[in-house]
């Protein structure tokens, strides 16, 4: 979760958007995190570079929890 927050904040920072303090499993990527479709593309690329998994390859992802599921990550703070 920490790593994902870090990657989201890199994207937000690149777009001069306000960075997030925290995220939860239920956070919506668009409405809660403030990412648009091009931001999400950048996030996918950053996640892929880190975990070698393209999270959007098979279908739509709307929440942080869905990303964690895709990556098989523990839903802890780590």
């Amino acid at each position, binding site marked *: 979760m920490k790593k994902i927050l870090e990657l989201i904040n890199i994207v937000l920072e690149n777009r001069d958007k306000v960075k997030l303090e925290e995220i939860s499993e239920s956070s919506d990527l668009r409405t809660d995190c403030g990412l648009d479709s*091009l931001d999400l*593309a*950048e996030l996918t*690329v950053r996640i*892929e570079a880190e975990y070698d998994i393209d999270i959007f390859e098979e279908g739509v992802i709307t929440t942080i929890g869905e990303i964690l599921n895709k990556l098989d990550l523990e839903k802890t703070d780590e």
Partner: protein
Amino acid sequence: MKNILISGVSRGLGLEITKSLLKKENICVYGFSRAKTKEFEFLKEKNPEKLKWMSYDMSNISDIRNKIFKEFIGLKTPLHGFVNNAAISYDDIITNLNYEPLLKMYKINVFGPMMITKHVIRQFLLHNVKGSIVHVSSISAHTGYKGLAMYASSKGALEAFSKNSAREWGERGIRSNSLVAGFMETDMSSTLSVDQKNRIFKRTSMKVPTTKRSVSETIIFLLSESAESITGQNIHVDSGTI
């Protein structure tokens, strides 16, 4: 250091672009083609640091990410430009059209380049680079020639793809343009008869072939920051075919 990916570097226009780019400072060319020519090998020996080459057949679409981006360029290397130059021509009149050669041409001229563009843009995003993409198109997509309908259609597809890439990614500073080349003297055009060539030249203002030099210098300009406000365009370098 600016890193530029070029397809079809072994001969013809691709070799010319590579040669001109290597004369510039701080440029590294990542090029691929299926085979190497003597001339390309010579160029590579002279520029061991600035010119990297891999054998890759673009009709092999499923390996593009692994082979070109992960192994050859490496995800850690920022990419600044892509020249989609490699192509083949399937020439015949439409009533003789066969699906297999048509599909093969589309894989090399359109589907492969589209998949490479996907990963090029992803690499731009990963490194926060305002990169530039240039697709090499052909005057045949704008002026009809007997026997070139299939080939011309593949270039028309690229031009539309380029324009839409420009619109989609413009707000990230990523640019995409098509270089519409006129008839050049290369292997691709070597099968044309003198008579056919003369008929093509007659339709140009200058009545001469388009030079590889003029096309490649324009491509290098479109890659550069001097072209920072040019995107979504079809730039004609075609001896004035009007």
